[in-house]
């Protein structure tokens, strides 16, 4: 095997490489004739065009088979997630701290809420209808304009004290802050099995002291007429119902862990892996 190990100098290697790139004697470019290279390039060009075509065709077929109104499967959406506004995340989930006397620390939080609620002004909701029934709002036909379905109106004034209308600072300076709880949309999901799901907030780990909460709308319920959701295409103007919570007796300068659950049949809130399925955990000072 020793015969293979001929040491070459650097210049010899360079020369070999140059010869490989273009060999003037055999007229080989990189070891092949030019025409050969052309053939190969053409072949690969054709090959990739065909492959792209096949890919495009597959995606096209896929798009033709999927239902435009609702997905074929909801394997991972058995139960809706619950989120909170304002949403400030620390390394272990939602963490909200602010200093009452320093309005810079809570200005951002208030702005978030105000921005969030702009989608719930009467102007933004003008396409939606007023619903009064406290039952599921089933629509089998497309009654809305442009082959859509109707959505129920939810305006920020339904949140009363936490609507930002009466108190644009959402109670932050008084130490009785408002938080808005939103349940994620899931198509055709019917929460509560006929009874409206409601929000319930408690301290976690500290059962002795009772958390005093004001819920808006009353009882902190999501009215059933906002369900089921028929999807973006059917209900383009649908907006999630909200529940606002106002914590009334939070001790200052102490870290609290507050758990807000949505209680209702069909809403799972004890999945160990998913901290936001059916519940939201808040740390508050």
């Amino acid at each position, binding site marked *: *095997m*020793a015969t293979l190990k001929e040491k070459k100098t650097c210049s010899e290697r360079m020369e070999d490489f140059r010869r490989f790139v273009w060999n003037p004697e055999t007229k080989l470019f990189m070891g092949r004739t030019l025409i050969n290279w052309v053939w190969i390039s053409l*072949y690969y060009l054709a090959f990739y065009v065909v492959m792209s075509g096949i*890919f495009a065709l597959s*995606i096209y077929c*896929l798009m033709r088979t999927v239902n435009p109104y609702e*997905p074929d499967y*909801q394997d991972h959406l058995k139960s809706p997630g619950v989120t909170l506004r304002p949403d400030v995340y620390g390394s272990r989930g939602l963490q909200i701290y602010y200093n009452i006397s320093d309005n810079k620390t809570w200005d951002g939080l208030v702005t978030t809420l105000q921005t969030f609620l702009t989608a719930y002004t009467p102007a933004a909701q003008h396409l939606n209808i007023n619903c009064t029934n406290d039952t599921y709002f089933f629509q089998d036909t497309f009654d809305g304009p442009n082959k859509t379905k109707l959505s129920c109106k939810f305006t920020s004034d339904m949140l009363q004290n936490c609507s930002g209308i009466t108190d644009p600072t959402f109670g932050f300076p008084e130490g009785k802050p408002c938080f808005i709880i939103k349940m994620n949309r899931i198509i055709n999901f019917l929460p509560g099995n006929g009874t409206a799901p409601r929000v319930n907030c408690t301290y976690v780990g500290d059962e002795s002291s009772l958390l005093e909460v004001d819920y808006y709308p009353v009882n902190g319920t999501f009215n059933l007429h906002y369900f089921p959701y028929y999807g*973006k295409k059917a209900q383009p103007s649908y907006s999630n119902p909200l529940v606002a919570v106002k914590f009334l007796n939070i001790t200052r300068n102490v870290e609290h862990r507050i758990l807000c659950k949505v209680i209702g049949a069909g809403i799972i809130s004890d999945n160990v892996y998913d901290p936001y*399925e059916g519940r939201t955990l808040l740390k508050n000072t």
Partner: protein
Amino acid sequence: MKSPFCSLSFSLSFGIQDDHRLSASELETKYGTSISEGLSSAKAAQVLARDGPNALTPPKATPEIVKFLKQMIGGFSILLWIGAVFSWISFGIQLAQGTVSFIDQLYLGVVLALVVILTGIFAYYQEAKSTNIMASFSKMIPQQALVIRDGEKKELPADQLVVGDIVEIKGGDRIPADIRLIFAQGCKVDNSSLTGESEPQSRSCDFTHENPLETKNIAFYSTTCVEGTATGIVINTGDRTIIGRIASLTSGVGNEKTPIAIEIEHFVYLVAGVAISIGVLFFIISVSMRYKILDSIIFLIGIIVANVPEGLLATVTVSLSLTAKRMAKKNCLVKNLEAVETLGSTSVICSDKTGTLTQNRMTVAHLWFDNQIYSADTSEDQTTQPFDQSSPSWTALSKIVTLCNRAEFRPGQENLPIMKRVVVGDASETALLKFAEVILGDVMNIRAQNKKVAEIPFNSTNKFQLSIHKTDDPNDERFLLVMKGAPERILERCSTIMINGKEEPLDSEKAEAFQTAYMELGGMGERVLGFCHLYLPENEFPDTYSFDTDSMNFPTSNLCFVGLLSMIDPPRSTVPDAVSKCRSAGIKVIMVTGDHPITAKAIAKSVGIISATSETVEDIAKRLNIPVEQVNWREATAAVVNGMELKDMSSQQLDEILCNHSEIVFARTSPQQKLIIVEGCQRQGAVVAVTGDGVNDSPALKKADIGIAMGIAGSDAAKNAADMVLLDDNFASIVTGVEEGRLIFDNLKKTIAYTLTKNIAELCPFLIYIIASIPLPIGTITILFIDLGTDIIPSVALAYEKAESDIMNRRPRNKRKDRLVNEQLAIYSYLQIGIMQSVGAFVTYFTVYAEQGFLPSTLLGVRVNWENNAINDFEDSYGQEWTKYQRTYLQWTGYTAFFVSITIQQVADLIIRKTRRNSIFQQGNKVIWVGIFSQIGIALILTYGLGHVTALNFTPLRFQYWFVAVPFAILIWVYDEVRKLFIRRYPGNHLHPIFLSKENITNFPISSLLLQAGGTRTCIIKTHPHHCLLPPYGDLLPLLTKPLLLECPVCAISSMGSPHDGVKEFHDYEKK
């Protein structure tokens, strides 16, 4: 190569003491021993403690821990270590930043480290297992020695011997140490393992030569006592023996890397090069796309893991050890796994004659009586002899053969076939005894009936052997004198000759006939013996006559000549076939022997090493009747080179001989010259296999690319130096080994092609993920499950693939050109099949996401929000909102879907890789089904069985997603079948580089081609006296029937051209 032996003779002359000069009593005092009583046990124990056991120190083995660590950092391991370290670094940084959510990184690093360690342990275990086979083999025969100690004879293990011990040896024993003889009776030793001389040498207690190596009163360790008995004092033990000193010299000859190790290294460089360049390229891209450095590092790890075929090296080891096992069954014991393949790339075999090509026993080959030569059967298992036995001359001859013979069967072997029985006696007498036993039946009984009354054994001055018997005819009172010996000496003593049972005067005409026959038999390289007899007249030699062998009071001349018998060590019956196989496989067989050139040439001719039609320079000279010097030696294809000539040759002259003659026999060579021959062959760029048995062969065995030691005749030193041991000493076994070696190389190519393909399907997800910012299609852990889970058994199954018909009709692979992994294989796997797989897997991926709510258009560019832990109301294409966990779970479903579609397409890949040119319909292999079922089975278990274990990132996948990739699998299969059809139909097309078909040229020997062409006189493009060029897979063969070809002249191509040249010239010729 000179140095070991120059220094050898130097050290030896100083090495041995002057023990051979001393008298017995001087020796007794020197070693404190007594010839009659031996050493005392206490003294022996003392010396043993001082000198150590009487065994050769095995060559220094690499410490186990070093071997183990080598497995840990060799090959791809280093890349994976880098990946693991990066994972830990990024985890460390995240830990320092206080974000512990990236615990995945720690986990990934641990998994990568585990993978390296486990595959390392596995490879180490495989390697160790094959070494153990060897170790157990050498322990099989513990040697015993008969020692006198404390005045008693004891059997001791030979390694307990110490200097001063008195040992007794007898015929058949191996000399247990270097011994100064003090008593010897008819003792002969076979020094071939030391000096290469095959003739047994007599030993006595006389000091005959100044040089300890030449003197007759020293017997050397590891040589064998052929006959007689002797007693001697141990003067050297263990490493201080002559053999021990030679053996220690061998370790000076370095170990070279095996071809397969070079190939694997080349492959590792190639893949690592691709991995690192793509990794670095995308690191730069991702940094310039404003990804965080930390993220970019994580991408880098993913790319490395996707590119490295983690399971491949383990698979290669398993495949090699499977082949090694198969070879062991065929009597090739492989010491070093990699040697399996080396054998396959062998282009020159330097073979010993005795024992390897031949049966290693003298056998009667020809007889001459009644003025006629008869041939005898020389096969291994003769039971009868076919020649005409009706002549009364034969009766007379057979009587002489039977009676004038001292050899005897060892008792108790009546049930064994005659050829296998052990005989006490020298080689020729054994041959005659067995020959007579086969024809006449119970020889011992015949001898008993013809009672021996006097005998003169053979000696070198008389050159004859004589005995006088009573006859078995009760009416005949005459004594019968029988004699055998060197034919010319026998003839001198004869005045008559027996023709058809009648004594006729021996006139010059009859003497001439004798001379012709003698020359003819001698010319065949056979050892010829003459036989004569005389019935002593009854009146002069009555019943009571007392014969005296010293005064020779009986006639020893004017005898009656009866006939000649010639003997040879005949070739093994399987060898000619094996040699012709080598020839068609493009392997040059060179015979290297210590025998006489005439014998060597005769054997070479009879086994086909020198083919029937080729001539040496001497033959041409004889035919043309001109002096040897005038012959153009380029015309001679064969050469018989004498060791004496070789000694005076420069290396250029040797190169010229090796280059210009295709059939070479080296005769009268010493084992040292073998090393020179091996080096000469290696200078030609050949991969050389060398067989050897003697201690002096070990440098050549080490130097050779693959050293093959003889299992039966081989010395331990030879076995130590060799890479392979032939258990049956049979040349034909080497050829089976070559076949296996070539097969495994082909199969490893398949395995690698199979393994490399999916790398692209594992890599593309990362690239698209970085560029298009889609959710990650497949995770690093999942990739490991493909590489080390589903793909392992199918890759091993490919090692069971049978040969694609022409394996032994190919030239040996060219070390520089036929790589295990060449650019074409990589490009075809990466840029064609790999791309198809990726497309199939991505279609599955998009299908899963779309049917769960994320249409492809939504997925593009979502990566940052998708991976944001703070977004728990991520909106999909239908307006639904997803928490982070729900998204992650969907992402795992995506991983599983991607995994499943790669697995499904790997089934298609496995099917197409099964054969490289043949259609799948042309070749079956049942093991492949095991591969396919295991692949799917493991995927099912991972998906549904372990789908709930979060750490593994698998989810129970909806069943229909298994079938999304099936059309793509079928597409891959059809595409490859079309490719195979194309290269079978249009060999030599310039589109071939795309289609992976730049293959070794099929190299048929002309004879087989003629056979295939129906025996018509046909000419194909001739490139070599015995070989011609055909495009792969003989697409030419159907054309051979065309009348055009039937009478074409020889069209020679100047060099061994590429297939293109060959085919082109052929087509050009056809046009004319």
